């Protein structure tokens, strides 16, 4: 089963930026993953900073490993948001790989 989590809860915020804002969403995602569900994250109408995306997705990669990517999908991303997600995920996967190699 796939659960859709929308990031559009606050209309006043266009660029999701703070880690504290990402944490409740990440916890919700983790709950779904723990029950075996896949999660689609909907970025419709939102920009995001690297910090927000890292707290939302990078932290999942750090805690659950690269394999968590198979359970996640990203909907309605602008090209900028896609690029930031790619940067964060690659950085965290490489960080895990480097730590393991040492």
């Amino acid at each position, binding site marked *: 089963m796939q659960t859709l989590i929308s990031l559009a809860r606050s209309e006043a915020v266009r660029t999701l*930026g703070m880690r504290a804002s990402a944490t409740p969403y990440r916890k919700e995602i983790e709950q779904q993953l723990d029950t075996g569900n896949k999660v689609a994250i909907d970025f419709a109408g939102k920009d995001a900073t690297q910090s927000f995306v890292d707290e939302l997705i990078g932290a999942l990669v750090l805690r659950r490993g690269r394999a968590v990517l198979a359970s996640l999908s990203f909907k309605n991303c602008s*090209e900028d948001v896609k690029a930031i997600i790619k*940067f964060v995920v690659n950085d965290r996967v490489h960080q895990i790989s480097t730590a393991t190699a040492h």
Partner: protein
Amino acid sequence: MFGHLFESDAILLPKGLGSSDPTALFRICNQISECQGDVVLDAQDLVFVDPLGMATLRALFETQLLHKNISIRWLGNQITSYLHRMDFFADLEIQGVDLPNDRARNDLPGTLLEITKVSEHAQAENIASRLALAITGKLTRSDPDAPVNHATGKNEFDLYRVPIEYSLKELLENSLTHARRNGRGDAAVWVACQYFPKTKSVRMAIVDNGCGFLSTLEHHPKLTEPTDSAAIKAALLPRVSCNRGPLASYDRDSENQGVGLTTTARIAEAADGYLIVASGNAWLETKRSGEDSSPDSRWNGVAIAFVCSREKLPDVSVPKLLPVEEHDIDEELDFG
């Protein structure tokens, strides 16, 4: 009653307080902090205070007023009015300043750019969004709610807003995360923004009164020597953070990537600007690599000024400014 205003040992404020002369600004801060008794500031020469000067002095006054009285003499009407309009004096008991009875504000609701204190992470998102929206409203008359270009996901307003809001939030995140380490749980962050139409420049300041870069990075392998100057340079390197990798506290809720400050410096530079980063007794300007270090010029915390050109903001592409990364994981990402 106002006899203290004529004391001969008053601290003479320079003509300008802000990013034009960081050494002078932080020397004044140091003099005020080091002053054992009450402080008298002589503002007869002062004609200009920018967001860095305003946020820094406000942060300093809030803490110093807990221990001493502060008075300002000869503060001109124009600058008094400006500082008053920016809420600089709000809830501060500064003596000797003749404040107007009511704030003559020309701003429309939702466009106020008053100096703002952020104490909690939870407040930061909405405060930074409000400030970014307000300052962008001074940069362009385009409609914030106009339809977006389908290729970019942005309208004209967004072209100005995105780099500003991104930078503001990354700098705020940086301050809120690092300032409260090493026993400084009471630290806060002050934010001030202003658009200067004459020079078409945007200036923002994010100032904290926390433990400073040297304290947070003292065990980091990238710190070349235990000085404030070296700590600032290390903090500007990509992937350097007191909270990344082996230095992270795994019992905490999150770990940083250490690229927020680096990317923000690159955004400023891409918009024909720069950052001034001050901590301890050093400061550094990112564009010309100008720097200064002086024992009598000091900021206890981190003070950052973001300066950029309005004209260049629409050309900024934030993703292109992120550190270079191998993209061998891209195919595992589902953007369907």
